[in-house]
């Protein structure tokens, strides 16, 4: 009853014209930066940080939450339409989503992504609202050993998930991890592979790498392959909405994705990306078990990761609001907006600022509804992009990509990085290397390396730290069981068929 009255008070505050305006501005900006290459939610928030003292803490929080959500919605658009993810968490969506677009099913893919995001965001909010304090204690109980195991688990899953040879995927994972070491080492501050260059000391940027290997490389391929005149197939208007079968097939993946995303989103360090990989893996496994097609435009592969991505975004607010600890750079920006308004969030934030907390929760519900209402009609508009001939579309995308990557840091160096990444990706792509493991390994390399080193510093060199801690022991046990099951399965299958096959690859 307490929660209901609190929430009603929250909605009273969230439904004022000014709050609605802040939410609308947030979701519009968020969707825009999510769709456009380069500038992400972080950049948008940084630009607007100076505005936050003027608009006050409530509206600042609503605005930033709107941007955060909006970007999570918008990020999938280019993944599905063009096969060019705008951010790391949308990479997994590309696999099935873009395949759907090529079959003229971009409409259902985009719609399901929006619906999944809505459901996951709303469910995540329920979790945030009811369970923030107890969940936050759980969240801090994970430490470096758990982060490491989680990230390694995610990368291994990725290796198995990527079509083609396991060795090639593994090679790309290592390449990604290696590329991630360039720059000043986060922990020691020591420069690595920088060749005394100030630019290299900054490390390779995520935006230039993603834009290079997915965006620019795709453009190169479209130039080289003159046969391909269109990027995808523009669907007929009546094929925009998901069919009843699409909805039915997506319902469970959305719920599972929400659960996976929210649970993993509580764990700091790369969990947003990992949760999309895990969700994709789970959906593929279930589809295989039920003898459903997967890997060539299955809607479950869009619904799951997209939901996981959004539920994870909400879960990221749990440690921030319940403990005052930002687990990601985006939530750190939200914290800065509060600081500039004279609020220093800590463990007593929800009690001390109950009105603010409930207004923001209510505003997040409102923002979610706005995003759904905004995104579903936009599906029609976005899919029209595919009707544009490649010779017109690709130069436009190229220009937007160049501007986006340049404008993020006003750095010409980033543009060079993008160009180099694109050339390498083009060459490797021609040799059947998949870029997905590369990019995700690159994203996760900092967490992987830092948490490995931290674990070993904590244990003073002993590997037993991974077994001594209950959570990491549990994760290891789970991984072991899965590996065992796979081995046994492979053995049975090999006996049945009389030959050893590469596990689950075609």
């Amino acid at each position, binding site marked *: 009853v307490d929660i209901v009255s609190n929430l009603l008070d929250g909605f009273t505050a969230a439904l004022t014209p000014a709050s609605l305006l802040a939410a609308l501005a947030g979701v519009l900006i968020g969707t825009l930066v999510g769709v456009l290459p380069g500038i992400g939610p972080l950049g948008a928030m940084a630009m607007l940080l100076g505005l936050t003292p003027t608009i006050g803490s409530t509206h600042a929080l609503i605005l930033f939450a709107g941007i955060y959500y909006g970007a999570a919605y918008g990020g999938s658009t280019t993944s599905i339409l063009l096969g060019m993810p705008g951010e790391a968490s949308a990479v997994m969506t590309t696999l099935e989503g873009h395949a759907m677009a090529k079959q003229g099913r971009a409409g259902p893919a985009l719609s399901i992504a929006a619906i999944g995001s809505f459901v996951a965001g709303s469910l995540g909010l329920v979790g945030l609202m009811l369970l923030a304090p107890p969940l936050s204690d759980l969240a801090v109980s*994970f430490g*470096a050993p758990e982060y490491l195991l989680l990230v390694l688990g995610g990368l291994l899953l990725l290796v198995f998930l990527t079509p083609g040879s396991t060795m090639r995927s593994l090679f790309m994972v290592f390449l990604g991890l290696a590329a991630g070491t360039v720059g000043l080492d986060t922990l020691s*501050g020591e420069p690595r592979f920088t060749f005394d260059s100030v630019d290299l000391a900054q490390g390779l940027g995520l935006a230039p790498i993603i834009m290079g290997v997915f965006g620019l490389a795709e453009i190169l391929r479209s130039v080289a392959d003159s046969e391909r005149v269109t990027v995808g197939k523009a669907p007929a208007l009546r094929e925009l909405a998901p069919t009843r079968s699409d909805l039915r097939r997506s319902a469970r993946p959305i719920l599972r994705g929400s659960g996976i995303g929210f649970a993993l989103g509580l764990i700091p360090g790369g969990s947003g990306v990992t949760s999309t990989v895990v969700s994709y893996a789970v959906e593929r496994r279930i589809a295989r078990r039920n003898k459903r097609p997967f890997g060539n435009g299955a809607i479950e592969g869009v619904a799951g990761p997209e939901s996981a991505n959004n539920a994870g975004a909400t879960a990221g607010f749990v440690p921030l609001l319940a403990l005052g600890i930002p687990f990601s750079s985006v939530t750190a920006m939200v914290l800065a907006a509060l600081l*500039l308004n004279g609020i220093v*969030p800590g463990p007593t934030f929800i009690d001390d600022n109950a009105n603010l907390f409930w207004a923001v929760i209510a505003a997040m519900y409102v923002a979610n509804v706005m995003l759904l209402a905004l995104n579903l009609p936009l599906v029609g508009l976005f899919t029209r992009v595919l009707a544009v001939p490649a010779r017109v579309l690709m130069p436009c995308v190229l220009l937007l990509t160049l501007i986006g990557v340049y404008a993020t840091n006003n750095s010409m160096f980033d543009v060079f990085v993008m160009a180099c990444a694109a050339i390498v990706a083009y060459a490797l792509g021609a040799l059947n290397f998949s870029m997905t493991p590369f990019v995700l390994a690159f994203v996760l390399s*900092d967490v992987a390396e830092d948490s490995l080193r931290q674990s070993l*510093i904590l244990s003073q060199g002993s590997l037993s730290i991974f077994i001594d801690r209950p959570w990491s022991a549990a994760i290891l046990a789970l991984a072991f069981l899965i590996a065992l099951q796979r081995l046994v399965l492979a053995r049975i299958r090999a006996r049945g068929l009389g030959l050893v096959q590469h596990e689950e690859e075609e």
Partner: protein
Amino acid sequence: MKRRTMRAVAIGLTIASCASLSACGSDTTSEGATSDFPKRTIEMVVPYAAGGSTDAVTRFLVDLIDKQKLLPKRIQIVNRDGGSGSVGLTQVASSKPDGYTIGVAQSTIVTLQPHVQKVAYEYDSWDALVQLSTAPKVLVVKSDSPFKTAEDLIAAAKAKARSVRVSQAGNLTDTDLAIRSIEDRTGAEFVRVPYESDAAALTALLGGSVDAQMGSGATVAPQIAAGKLRALVSSGSKGSKLFGDVPTAVDLGVGDEITTNQMIVAPAGVPEDVKRVLVDAFVKATKSKEFAEFAKANSREVAIVDEAELATQLREEYDRNASFEDAAGG
């Protein structure tokens, strides 16, 4: 927002058309600095990403200057992140000394970074105009920790070397220097566990991965207030009461004063009258009631130090930090 993005893009393109950032600054400013300074917007380089503690305090001050009309023109914050602050300050050092490009700095950028990485400046490549405030570090344990006082913790670390694990925000950061100074003064040997940020170091402490944390006041103070953590000793100045009864390392004789200071820097050679206008505005804002509240909430102390004294202070710090020449990566 559309407009804002477009403007950012437009600014980006303008800058691209200039040969370099610094060249761009000097080409467009032909008017000399006179007593009617400032005649246009002042650019203030924050050498860290938006959202950090130095960024936040600077934005708060700039906002105050704007609200209280302490300067006739606006100050525009520009974040130039990278190289532990050295990238942004290099830009300041190489800009035209007319007062229209200034920067905010922590002293370590000036006194430590030249020792530990290749930077394109010397510790005196700028005029450090004024120090405004300082933020001490504080050594905290969980409230159920067996260590009740700093002496307990130090004694344990001395009794058995490397038996006490302390989290901190990365090697050669202020939090690291603060814990090293305790080691140097007392002979205690901790396991210093570097994390990627103060927040991550705090998470490690709350989750029980480490026994103690040397953290910035702003990060740990809310946890202390909520009863989750206990403060043992701060790295503030002698007799500082910023954390109530918590003694400082100097008071106890177990360490040095190590604070993250906030100072305003400008390229060397800015005319005196221009400097005075800038310093006056920042000092007035820093002494305001509004700032006092902000400082208290963010565990920051107003500590105004003028240019001459600051120069001496930086020189001493620079010399002292020479011992870290080989410490990078250690």
